[in-house]
């Protein structure tokens, strides 16, 4: 207490910095609780989560106008990483700067983290293997999980509007990455997904530059 008395002018300045924290601690807490709630009750992540974040941030609390939210969403989508976490970071940053983005991001991932931790502690791979009921249940679940990932292959292929000039790309990517399993061939770095992400991004950019140059001349 004596330390606090010796420099009384500093404490309020820390609590309320008018530049990056116009609304005080209450709103930071509210931001954390909002994203914590979203992280706790939304299954599946991605777009399911985005619509709920939009409802909470734009419609309920009126923290951000819808136009601006869509603008932040466009930025979040253009960057790698987990979309729902990116939008939490962007909204937090827009509202309260660095502190806001840390609070919103933490709120968004903490429920997942804690729930999975509880499950992981009790449901280790050995538990599943040694428990007759669980091993039977998971034997049925595993082939279904594969199907759950086959479905978005088709959905994303249709959404990508593949043409005859681009349809070879996913084929080459899929065959190269799984070459070890399919043909027993080790392509080394040639089967690394990161290689194809870099090639795809660079290829898209290069074609665009060439097209622009073609238009100019």
């Amino acid at each position, binding site marked *: 207490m004596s330390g606090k008395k010796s420099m009384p002018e500093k404490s309020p300045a820390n609590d309320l910095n008018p530049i990056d924290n116009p609304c005080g601690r209450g709103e930071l807490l509210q931001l954390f609780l909002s994203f914590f709630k979203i992280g706790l009750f*939304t*299954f599946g992540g991605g777009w399911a989560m985005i619509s709920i974040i939009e409802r909470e941030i734009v419609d309920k609390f009126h923290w951000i106008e819808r136009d601006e939210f869509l603008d932040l969403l466009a*930025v979040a989508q253009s960057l790698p990483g987990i979309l729902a976490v990116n939008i939490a970071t962007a909204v937090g*940053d827009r509202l309260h700067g660095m502190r806001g983005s840390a609070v919103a991001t933490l709120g968004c991932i903490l429920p997942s983290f804690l729930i999975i931790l509880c499950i992981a502690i009790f449901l*280790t791979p050995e538990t599943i293997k040694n428990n007759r009921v669980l091993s039977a249940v998971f034997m049925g*679940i*595993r082939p*279904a999980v594969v199907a759950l990932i086959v479905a978005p292959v088709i959905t994303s292929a249709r959404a990508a509007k593949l043409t005859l000039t681009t349809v070879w*790309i996913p084929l080459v990517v899929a065959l190269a990455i799984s070459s070890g399993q399919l043909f027993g061939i080790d392509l080394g770095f040639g089967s690394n997904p990161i290689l194809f992400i870099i090639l795809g*991004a660079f290829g898209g950019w290069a074609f665009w530059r060439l097209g622009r140059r073609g238009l100019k001349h």
Partner: protein
Amino acid sequence: MNIYLKLIWAYLKIGIFGFGGGYAMLSLVEHSVVDPGWITEMMFTDIVAISQMTPGPIGINSATYIGYVAPAHVDPSLASPVWGVLGSLLATMAVVLPSFFMVIYSSHFIRRHQQSGAIKAVFSGLRPVVVGLIASAAILLMNAPNFNPNGIDWQLAVNIIISAVAFCLVYFKLPWKGGKRSLHPILVIILAGIAGFIIYY
């Protein structure tokens, strides 16, 4: 190198190159976590299932789970909750931090290039690649541990049927209360679990 440093490095890469959503990220996870043997293919499939069924993004859920399981699997002397929690914490932070700083420090850059059309061009190249990444994640999961762990023919046949039915349920829209909708993935996992219990118990 220490397993924790390896986990951090792997998940930083996943965070930096993770374009195209959770399913596309799975192929990166498979490549950097399952291939080196930090977890088995079977564990990976189970973790994907559990990540689907619990709230939150699949990328966070799987990073936390794999971070918990991997140290003990690589080095049995690390088989205690404390070492597991440390792995969870590091993997989850590593997957989030790259995009965290990119969102904060590159939004101006992104907006400028969005207007010029450069970002759109990059994604026109990334989109077909993402389709291939998700396809590779699916192909890599079509393996013996998932479909025929005991090497018994009738079990292989039953598992292929479970997979085909599950696909139809999530992909095709069925008439439901006036509208048309497909089954939620969580419901499909629960149904498959019940089927597994009835058939294999």
